[in-house]
């Protein structure tokens, strides 16, 4: 045991053999704390940190990427191809498969995000969340980082679905600006749904309950949106639900950007941005419950 207090090494310490002949590692940088980032730069820095982690994880293990591609592929291949031939859903001059593809992109992104709260609970149980909460990261910045990390995952998933749709002959735009818009829409939508999931996680606190609630709300959100059919075909009460459902605005924007249907892009972006801000606020307020 060393004497206390120990004298710290000078910051410029070189790696030199000690008296016992063993080479000690240079710890010079570990004696100087990094300069704190303050103000508006804090949140983007934390968001980038969390997104980088998601990308690193995907780089090491792409299994999730492949397995998650199966369901949207089946929706497009079976449901899309069948209903295109049936022509039972009126979509104007647009083939039903083309009409469906943006809805399936939004659906697969939502499915990724809506169960993100399970990851937060897993991180709570494994101590990762606790450790992050002891860093100089405001809770809102941590939630924003996690939300956009879910968004990054969803964007990669969206790229996979777009490629599958292109292979099936869906006529989509390849305009880079429009595709950038698609990425922003997917990012915002996923950020909202992951915040919704983290909010529920902060209320129910256990994986089992969150899983049950996640499954209970996923299908109503999906079928209560314009992902599969035009809002005009819905009964009045479902149209009201659809108007309050952020997924509808996400699908509307994706359709407008990808296949050029009439869309309300400013309204869509505005609703998604507002929903994301509200989601971050709610999830941040409840994150502390997970730390107890």
């Amino acid at each position, binding site marked *: *045991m*060393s*004497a*206390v*207090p*120990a*004298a*710290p*090494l000078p*910051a410029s310490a070189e790696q030199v053999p000690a008296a016992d002949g063993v080479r*000690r*590692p*240079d*710890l*010079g*940088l*570990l*004696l*100087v*704390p*990094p*300069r*704190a*980032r303050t103000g508006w730069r804090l949140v983007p*820095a*934390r968001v*980038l*940190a969390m997104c*980088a*982690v998601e990308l*690193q*994880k995907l780089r*090491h*293990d792409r299994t999730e990427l492949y397995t998650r591609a199966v369901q949207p592929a089946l929706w497009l291949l079976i449901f899309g191809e069948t209903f295109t031939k049936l022509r039972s859903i009126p979509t104007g001059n647009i083939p039903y498969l083309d009409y469906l593809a943006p809805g399936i992109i939004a659906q697969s992104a939502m499915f990724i995000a809506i169960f993100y709260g399970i990851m937060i609970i897993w991180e709570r*149980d*494994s*101590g*990762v969340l*606790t*450790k*992050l*909460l*002891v*860093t*100089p*990261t*405001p809770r809102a910045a941590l939630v924003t980082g996690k939300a956009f990390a879910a968004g990054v995952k969803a964007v990669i998933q969206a790229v996979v679905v777009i490629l599958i749709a292109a292979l099936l002959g869906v006529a989509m735009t390849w305009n880079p600006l429009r595709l950038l818009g698609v990425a922003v829409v997917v990012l915002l939508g996923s950020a909202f749904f992951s915040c919704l999931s983290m909010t529920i996680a902060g209320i129910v606190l256990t994986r089992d309950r969150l899983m049950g609630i996640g499954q209970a709300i996923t299908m109503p959100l999906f079928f209560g949106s314009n992902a599969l059919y035009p809002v005009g075909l819905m009964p009045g009460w479902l149209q009201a639900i659809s108007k309050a459902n952020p997924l509808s605005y996400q699908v509307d924007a994706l359709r407008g950007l990808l296949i050029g249907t009439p869309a309300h892009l400013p309204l869509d972006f505005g609703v998604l941005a507002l929903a994301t801000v509200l989601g971050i606020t709610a999830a941040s307020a409840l994150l502390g419950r997970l*730390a*107890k």
Partner: protein
Amino acid sequence: MTDDDAASRDATNRAAADRDATGAGTDTGTGTSTGTSAGTGAAAGAAEAVVCRGLEYSFGKPRAGAARTKAVDGVDLEVRTGEVFGLLGPNGAGKTTTIRAITTLLPVPAGMVRVFGNDTARRKMDVRRLLGYVPQQLSADAGLTGRENVELFARVFDVPRAERAARVAQAIAAVDLVEAADRLVGTYSGGMVRRLELAQALVSAPRLLVLDEPTIGLDPIARTSVWECIDAVRAATGMTVLVTTHYMDEADQYCHRVGLMDRGRIRALGTPAELKAQVREQDPELPHPTLDDVFRHFAGRNLGHGQEGDFSDVRRTRRTASRVG
């Protein structure tokens, strides 16, 4: 006594002699700042790394007729700058709750907690910049490499991009994981994960390293390697170490001072040598008391008997033990 026990006792005696010879644990706590350049504001020049006064914390909602579980019941504590302080006690004693209040994870509903002069209730961000924290669970992300795990903490502590790689490399070298740094953490042993967590905590140059049961579930060799790592890093950086454990032999060997905690209260406080001397004086039937004897003497019961934490305490402990294999 087994050979292992004898060896452990010899090591303990050597460590105690070392501490006595250097005067560790007998200083007054003033003027012991090691002068690392970390810290902001009130932190500068604070002689005590941690001060708790009348700290209380209860779990459960205050409802009429329903009793709240008092996890911490009026804890007074001072951790001196530069020392290794051990908070000892059985599961459910209140150690982890105390640690969570010190690390700003829990609010401080009654009492006061200061870290290098910063009130944890008012200056959370300043306190967090001074802390390195290793929770009881194995908290490294198994889906990332060791280097990526450390990089994440370099990023969230705002290490500039220009020095990030070098700082991360130094933190990894400090815990002797250079060769395993680019392997996925899922392939690490329990002891390696613990050392990696130390690297994650060290990358921000903390002034106070807080370790919650760092050796739980590890085999004796891994336990020794983790403690040697902590000791070497502390000696090199001069940081203060606050550690909780229920392994009395470890505390005896590696801590300068210990606080024995039971049922939410500190039952005894001092250097292991001082506490043993007190027991020797008060109980002539124990000429060579161990810290277990000291605990029994001050808490009035054996360590490991009675109520040992609630379901979640035990589940967390077993989960960690299971993960370290």
